[in-house]
């Protein structure tokens, strides 16, 4: 096991990305709610430097500008729940945060940590997918700040794996402001309301005008190696009147397009049934909204 040789707690984003640029490997520490259990279970290979980014004030907070909502990577789940912009515009994200772990964990767990941990069951990831979020990645090669944005849908590669380079820090996410009549839903199925990892989760977003759906987004969690957009389900809904027949077709498409696995929380068969029934339930609710 590599030993930690250095502990570093930068106060600015520049210092943090300079540190990542150094050779030798860095473990980034935010809230620590994933890192600590992973370290204790021996599942984390600590790098030579442990870099605590929690002191970088500019990475925490929510702002609206130019028709986009920017959320800093260090914004906690509790911050999101208490933020008026998030409450008003991003209903799926609020719903996901509401059923996230426990109060004690929500108080420290960061949005950036949830994204970078890249669990297929990470609760905020499905809402971010349906909200068309982009991740903002920062690095500093040769002393120059380099920022790149990537759609969340392209960010996840597998469990715990993302397209973030080791020299990059996640600065936050950017979400286009949903229109006034936007409808957003999130549903997480677990065996108890708190401290439960999702058996499956479903996110929905779209506009219902004159009974017809448009700009439909559907995404699922815990049914594949990464959280996924559900393109067939979206196609079964886009531009159609939200009738019982449409809902039935979309729920069937949802069941057919997911490829879950058997694990301790549920069998693949049960997950497919859940996806079918809960997609139907969400759409029923939307139809009557």
């Amino acid at each position, binding site marked *: 096991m590599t030993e930690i040789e*250095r*502990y570093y707690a930068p106060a600015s984003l520049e210092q943090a990305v300079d540190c990542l640029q150094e050779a030798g490997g860095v473990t980034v520490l935010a809230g620590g709610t994933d890192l*600590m259990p992973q370290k*204790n279970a021996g599942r984390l290979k600590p790098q030579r430097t442990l870099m605590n980014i929690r002191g970088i004030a500019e990475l925490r907070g929510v702002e609206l500008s130019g028709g986009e909502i920017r959320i800093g990577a260090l914004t906690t789940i509790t911050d999101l729940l208490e933020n008026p912009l998030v409450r008003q515009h991003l209903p799926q994200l609020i719903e996901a945060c509401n059923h996230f772990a*426990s109060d004690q964990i929500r108080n420290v767990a960061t949005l950036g940590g949830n994204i970078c941990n890249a669990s297929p069951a990470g609760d905020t990831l499905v809402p971010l997918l349906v909200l068309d979020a982009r991740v903002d990645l920062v690095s500093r090669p040769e002393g120059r700040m380099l920022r790149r944005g990537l759609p969340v849908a392209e960010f996840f590669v597998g469990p715990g794996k993302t397209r973030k380079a080791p020299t990059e820090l996640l600065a936050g996410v950017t979400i286009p402001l949903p229109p006034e009549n936007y409808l957003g839903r999130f549903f997480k199925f677990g065996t108890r309301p708190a401290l439960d990892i999702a058996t499956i989760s479903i996110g929905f977003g779209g506009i219902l005008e004159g009974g017809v759906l448009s700009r439909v987004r559907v995404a699922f969690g815990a049914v594949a190696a990464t959280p996924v957009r559900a393109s067939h389900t979206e196609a079964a809904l886009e531009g159609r009147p939200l009738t019982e027949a449409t809902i039935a077709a979309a729920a069937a498409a949802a069941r057919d397009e997911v490829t879950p696995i058997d694990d301790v929380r549920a069998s693949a068969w049960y997950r497919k049934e859940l996806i079918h029934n809960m997609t139907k339930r969400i759409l029923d609710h939307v139809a009557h909204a």
Partner: protein
Amino acid sequence: MSLMHDIDFTLNGVRRRATVRVDMSALDMLRETIGLTGTKYGCGEGECGACTIQVDGVSLNSCLMFAVDCHGRQVVTIEGLGADEASTRASALRDAFVEHGAVQCGFCTPGMMMQASHLLDRHPHADAESIKRGIEGNLCRCTGYKKIVDAIVAVGEGIAP
């Protein structure tokens, strides 16, 4: 040998220095390095809430926090909550737990009190429903929770002894 690091923080109102292993939890630091054993080790993985403390005014699981991250912060443990006679809320909570029989074996009690005091700081008149949600991260194997919720509600309503 793991790397050691010096930190400087406020513990229960008193400035304090400690030398800690960089990969150590705040819980281990409190119990083993500093010797304050009021904060309990239940699961070590964020599930039970027995290790709940308050840092910069919010409650968290000390078993998930890196001790080095205490540097520069205000840390309050059950010893600080109990000792703070200036806080009428803390003594009201203590009395209400006794009065309502909210303590049996007592293992969950320090964590429950720390979380309850955080909840009442945020929502001074929290009702039973929101208190139940607020202590979702605290397990109690003895009481069945009802007496704990009753005690916290009573303090919130200001009707505790």
